[in-house]
């Protein structure tokens, strides 16, 4: 079946502009994660959605960052008034979160954001 997809694959924007990044999780997956990865570095957790529960926004670096998940499926990460330090690869992952004790996340290819 189809994996996690993200769009666009690359986004170049000017400082101060808003951007929207999209994630289509695997069908049936109840959990969805957003991460940020700067060049050559590890994964920085941003936000986590699980079913109809309130999202865990504890990783969002500032109020310029927000995310939505509509209908329990597609998610959009929005960055307002982008800054050069926002340049990174933004990764989305989804998982089944069955409650059985395992939670394998399946990652999308990421969106490479460049803020000029």
């Amino acid at each position: 079946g189809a994996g996690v997809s993200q769009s666009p694959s690359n986004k170049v924007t000017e400082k101060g502009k808003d951007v929207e990044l999209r994630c289509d999780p695997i069908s049936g997956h109840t959990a969805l994660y957003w991460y940020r990865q700067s060049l050559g570095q590890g994964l920085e957790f941003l936000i986590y959605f699980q079913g109809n529960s309130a999202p865990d926004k504890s990783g969002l670096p500032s109020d310029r960052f927000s995310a939505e998940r509509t209908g329990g499926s597609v998610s959009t990460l929005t960055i307002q008034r982008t800054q050069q330090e926002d340049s990174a690869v933004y990764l989305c992952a989804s998982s089944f979160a069955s409650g059985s004790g395992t939670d394998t996340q399946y990652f999308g290819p990421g969106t490479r954001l460049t803020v000029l």
Partner: protein
Amino acid sequence: GESVGLHLPTLSVQEGDNSIINCAYSNSASDYFIWYKQESGKGPQFIIDIRSNMDKRQGQRVTVLLNKTVKHLSLQIAATQPGDSAVYFCAERARGYQKVTFGTGTKLQVIP
């Protein structure tokens, strides 16, 4: 915690040798651990997982060892191949929580 702003440690291994990648965790409440592999330009890919009631689990050419006493996790790759060159991340989940937290990655370079 999240791995932010850190230089990735690098492990260089000769092709055909075994590789051991280590990961330390601090949360004694963690009950589930996963290893991911990330190739250049791609998202992380699941390799193998282990639950806290086990201390060893084997897959194809990979073995994960868990030492809860010292909060240490390792990934062993047998007969390392050039295709194993990637960044490897360990991840953990605390008991009672769904969110998985990634550790600092390790870059594996395989020397032909």
